[in-house]
């Protein structure tokens, strides 16, 4: 195992999963990363994941000198040195991976965010949708369950769509009722899957507002869904880049900010 003096860790305790990034600030590189489904004992879960990630990266856990927690469960991570919100962490993580980006769209399990960045990566403004799951990964989970497919397969299913169904983007509960109705009418599941992606994208586009400053980066777990990028590009009327590490940008930003803290 190697021991370095400038190693930091970021922990993103999200609503669906906890992510860890171990970062070498001196060489500005990621040493390791890990992800685990969220559970009840978030503190223990995060601690175990950090240890596991350190083991995998062959870094001594004791060598991780600074830890920042972010995400909805950040305050539950008691061993972190401090907490920073997801807005600041995602902005920092995306800027590290792609410094040109001016707009960050993050769609996670529970909410979605739009962050406008100044040149240089500073947050200029942000918006969050957390009043309804209609703009979040939870919407996709509900639909996957309703269509009887795995979440991972939902995006592929949408690709087979010939004509995406029109589905409400305002409320997941109403949308579920609509989906039941569409299934009863015999609408093919691929069209429903594509319709849901469009609904999420439309909700996020409303959050972004009229003026999108490119380049736009798409991050968060939902960015891994095939078809979502296309739906988002159509809704924003702008090209969208997918983050190199969509699930880890928050944790990465937290790790970098941890290293920068004196």
């Amino acid at each position, binding site marked *: 195992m190697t021991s370095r003096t400038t190693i930091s860790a970021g922990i993103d305790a999200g609503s669906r999963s906890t992510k860890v990034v171990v970062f070498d600030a001196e060489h500005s590189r990621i040493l390791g990363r890990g992800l685990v489904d969220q559970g009840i004992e978030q503190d223990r879960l995060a601690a175990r994941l950090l240890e596991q990630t350190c083991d995998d990266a062959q870094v001594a856990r004791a060598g991780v000198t600074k830890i920042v927690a972010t995400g*909805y469960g950040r305050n539950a991570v008691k061993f972190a040195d401090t907490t920073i*919100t997801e*807005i*600041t962490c995602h902005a920092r993580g995306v800027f590290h991976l792609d410094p040109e980006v001016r707009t960050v769209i993050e769609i996670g399990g529970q909410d979605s965010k739009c962050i406008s960045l100044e040149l240089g990566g*500073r947050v200029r403004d942000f918006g*969050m949708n*957390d009043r309804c799951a209609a703009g979040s990964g939870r919407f996709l989970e509900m639909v996957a369950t309703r269509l009887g497919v795995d979440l991972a397969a939902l995006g592929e299913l949408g690709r087979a769509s010939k004509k995406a169904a029109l589905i409400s983007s305002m409320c997941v509960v109403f949308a579920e009722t609509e989906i039941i109705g569409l299934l009863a009418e015999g609408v093919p599941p691929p069209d429903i899957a594509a319709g849901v992606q469009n609904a999420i994208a439309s909700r996020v586009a409303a959050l972004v507002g009229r003026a999108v400053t490119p380049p736009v980066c798409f991050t968060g777990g939902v960015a891994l869904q095939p078809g979502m990028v296309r739906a988002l590009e159509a809704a924003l009327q702008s090209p969208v880049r997918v983050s190199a590490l969509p699930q880890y940008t928050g944790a990465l930003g937290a790790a970098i900010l941890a290293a920068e803290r004196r």
Partner: protein
Amino acid sequence: MSAPQKLTVSEWDGHYAELRRAGLREPAYGGSLSRHIAQEGDVRLQQLRFDNSAAALRLWNFLLTENQRLHEARRDGDKIVGAMKDLGTVPVMAYSLPRVRAFYPDGAWWTPCLMECSDGLLQQAEALGIDGSFCPVRAMVAAFQNGEHFPRPDLLVCSAGSVCDDFSAIAQRLERLGHPVVWWEMPRRREPDPGEPACVLPGGAVAPSIQVECVREELQQVAVRLGELAGHALDDRLLSDGIRQANRVRRVLGRLRALVYGAEAAPLPALEMLVAEMLAIHFCSDREESLEVLRGLLAEAGARVRRREFLTTADAVRVFWVNPVADLRMMNLLEDWGGRICGSDYMFAHALDLIPGELPPLEALARTALADPMVGSTQDRARRVVNDCGAHRAEAVVVCRIPGASHCAREGEVIREWVRTRLGLPSIELEIPPVCDAMLPTLGSRLQALLETARENRKWAGRTTEHK
């Protein structure tokens, strides 16, 4: 003299006993804070933290005994006027008359918050035809009907016209339920046409003279009704004196705001300042006492500033806050998370301005009423917010919303756009329900992210300055 800090209700009990032993002198409505939970069921107080000064204790006791004060006034034979929707104009008129006091029934919207809905006011309002799609002011309808809070007023006065749709519907429902209302019309304030005679209003907005004249005539009718109630005509002499007395309150409040918001750190908490500002619109049913309460706060704040003892650190982010919160905890949490209030527009910025003393009294009141930020365009309001943010050196802006309130669906976005483009400040819009327990983590994330962004801006501004 103890250093400033915020105490829970139970901590205040111990502190209260100490203050009593040290010779604390209180008005008749004084006492411990915890009694309001036991006697009135204001359980939300258990989740708030209060300033530890005797002046703050007096403020809270004054606020939380208003219903009791109104019942006592009724027993003493005073006439009681419910001034609805109007923010700070009709109360000035009512208090100009002997043995008449006004109160603000709309304020009942805070009751479900304080009582964590245990009194069932919102459910009762729903049963009376005003459901959850209306703003929490609907609590007022139930409070009128069940009579468990304030006494039934001798006269109800309500402005109509350029007021929010929710309130208009609620007040009309109230009238249908057997509570007669004296209506007066408030036109939507507009820009004067080219060459049209116009007046400058308190706060700097300009309105056509014909609109001022319209409001003056409406207020004249209200004055007649108030005079009939009092059995004593409300003439210019009485009204001028009433305006002078109201301006005394506004002056002290103005000095308090300037001192607290302008200080290097906060000498009084955001929560107490919010409550103090509210006194400008209704005097909490006792104009003279509200003046004394504000003087006490001003003295306390002044002493703390002189001793350089504050409740926040000097690096707390300076936040300009737009609209009042339904859940008072947000004001505590802002400070817990590293912010402080540096200025505010709690929907009644016009009630903080002095009423022009050099004009005929009804015209002065008409101009003040027409300066209400809620009766003009959203751009007018945004302009004033931007000016005030600049004057108060704000670093971030919070625009607060209350679920169901429909003053202007796009108002928050318009204000934020003005703040963003003209000042380059970060801002957020928060919707805070009367009891926001379940939403606290998400509200917290947004507010904390705003403060982080403002701090980062501060660092960048420092770097820019260094490079020059």
